[in-house]
């Protein structure tokens, strides 16, 4: 039973991270119907930025908490800037092009960013400093859930709540929903569509960076390639929940996290990634609209 709980909580942690990254996929897809392949790379760049900033600050002798705060903030700022720039360079010129063109461009961007970090930094795994504080009162339960895991789950919940608020109750959120429904109509009703799309990329990238910092300081290792696998898994989560839906991304992330956790715990750890990919293939084939998504009829 304890093993089960351990796996359950492990899945919850994993799932939270997937959900954070999945949000970016889901929001971008909801608005411009593009699988932003480079999104995983944004997450990776977020983690790298945090690592670099944290290392510099450590050498300068900052204390742990301020390092955590400043490094996370920098990660968010830079990741958002990358997201913004990528959209302007690689996707905006292709708004009217066939959908396949934008997708190919996104794949190119993903490969480009991976190798950019590889060349500018290193291909080795870098140790990531343990930035997250330890809570004393959780000490007795450390064998089933560490403080870091608690922080991950709580942060995710907080980000979700903030995002839901943003989308449901703010002007920007309304403009986003309008653009997702019908871009031309939104444009005609005075929504600045370009700005909405930019904001979507910025917000999505920022959440991915939060995910990047959390997972990197939890696992303690990063390299240029972490974005690729994480990206595909998060995409799986987004599709699983129903792409375009924010609660769907969270649900999808959790389901994927638990699937992986239980499958590796009870079946075999060799095939960890195979489970995720298989799940992805199965959903896309049997229920492409996802758990919370609604099926759409193609317009003729």
């Amino acid at each position: 039973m304890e093993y089960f709980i351990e796996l359950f909580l492990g899945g919850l942690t994993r799932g939270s991270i997937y959900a954070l990254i999945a949000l970016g996929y889901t929001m971008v897809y909801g608005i411009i119907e593009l699988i932003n392949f480079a999104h995983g790379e944004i997450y990776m760049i977020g983690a790298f930025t945090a690592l670099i900033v944290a290392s510099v600050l450590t050498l300068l002798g900052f204390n742990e908490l301020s390092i955590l705060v400043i490094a996370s903030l920098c990660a968010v700022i830079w990741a958002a800037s990358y997201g913004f720039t990528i959209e302007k360079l690689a996707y905006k010129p292709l708004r009217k092009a066939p959908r396949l063109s934008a997708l190919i461009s996104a794949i190119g961007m993903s490969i480009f960013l991976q190798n950019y970090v590889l060349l500018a930094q290193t291909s080795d795994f870098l140790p990531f400093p343990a930035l997250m504080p330890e809570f004393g009162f959780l000490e007795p339960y450390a064998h089933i859930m560490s403080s870091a895991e608690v922080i991950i789950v709580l942060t995710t919940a907080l980000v979700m709540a903030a995002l839901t608020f943003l989308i449901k109750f703010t002007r920007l959120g309304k403009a986003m929903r309008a653009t997702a429904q019908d871009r031309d109509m939104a444009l005609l009703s005075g929504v600045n569509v370009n700005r909405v799309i930019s904001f979507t990329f910025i917000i999505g990238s920022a959440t991915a960076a939060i995910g990047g910092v959390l997972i990197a300081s939890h696992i303690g290792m990063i390299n240029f390639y972490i974005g690729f696998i994480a990206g595909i898994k998060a995409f799986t989560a987004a599709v699983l929940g129903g792409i375009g839906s924010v609660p769907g991304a969270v649900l999808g992330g959790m389901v994927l996290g638990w699937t992986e956790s239980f499958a590796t715990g009870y079946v075999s750890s060799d095939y960890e990634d195979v489970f995720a990919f298989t799940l992805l293939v199965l959903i896309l084939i049997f229920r492409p609209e996802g758990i919370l998504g609604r099926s759409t009829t193609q317009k003729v």
Partner: protein
Amino acid sequence: MITFAEIKRSVLVSLWFMFLTFPIMVVRVNPIEEVIEWRWRNLIIIGVGSFAISFVWRYMMERKEAGLKRKEAGGEKPPLVKRIMDRPRLSRSIVGLVVAFVCVFPFLFSTYQVTIMSTALIYVMLGLGLNIVIGLAGLLDLGYVAFYAVGAYSYALLNFHFGVGFWIALPLGGLLGALFGILLGFPVLRLRGDYLAIVTLGFGEIIRLILENWNDFSFGPSGIAGISRPGFFGIDMSLNTATTYVYFVLIGLVILTVFFVNRLQNSRIGRAWIALREDEIACQAMGIDKTRTKLTAFALGATWAGMAGVVFAAKTTFINPASFTFLESAIILSIVVLGGMGSIPGVILGALVLILLPEYLRAFSDYRMILFGGILVLMMVFRPQGLISGVRRVYQFKGNGEKAPNGGSGS
């Protein structure tokens, strides 16, 4: 004329990129010695570089928009291939030169060069195969490398366990590739374009992960060594001769591929693929079976990947799962995109440029992958039809008094 406003914009762009790339490009942490390397030179390079590039970018954008307007006005220049084909003497002498060069190549250059050229030729085959799937049928297959792996592993395993020779394995590899294409294609081809891309990517990764983990079957990450080279009536060959031989085998296969693909794309089947790429719904309304047509394209593309895999295994005599990662699929995709989707000469050129350039320009080789990624983006933004765009065939028919202009073969 460069105006002040433009300079101001470029300065802003340059400042933005200096900010953007600052942490990754300038700071490098050495975690073991706990020192930080500050590479200020990179900052200057980025600044100056992005300042200059922003001008080029804007110029290209303007040109592209002007081009679009011209297209709408109907004043389009015919594509290069068509202009060359319109002059039969020129096109014949080009073909003649290429044939002559191809034949004498292995006798003029070192074994090393021949090996590189053979590698490029394998990519030509792969590119032409993927071109059927992406360029003609418009199906973005990101797991193409899986079929390449199927071909390579079927030869390696058949050779290892049963001593099956290259010439028997070659059609078998193609057949197995096709079989896998149909097996994988059947469930996924109902999906929309972008979902199809992701599912094929997933399938590709699953196959690689299985090869990596199923030690009893595939010998895991250590791979299979000592695969036989292609035989020639049982004659023993030195390494040099064998390399040359593989080269000519590949030349033969490439010619065969071009020959078949050209025929296919101008046939009833090929037309259906292109129609499907253009408009799925109209295609069905015209009586074309969507699933079957897609499946044919998928399976045929996989056939060529399977055969290329067999040749690859025979050429390198050693394979392991590391040769079949997603990046390999991305390279093949870049070849097709750079050359021109749906254009045979384009794909050949794309493969030669992308594979040979990094080999010969040593300075390039580190930047190989970043180059591929960049090419995908830049081509899509500025020249989606590729270096050499496809040409539609002009048909001869009864009943039109004069002969149709430029009658003859397709692209």
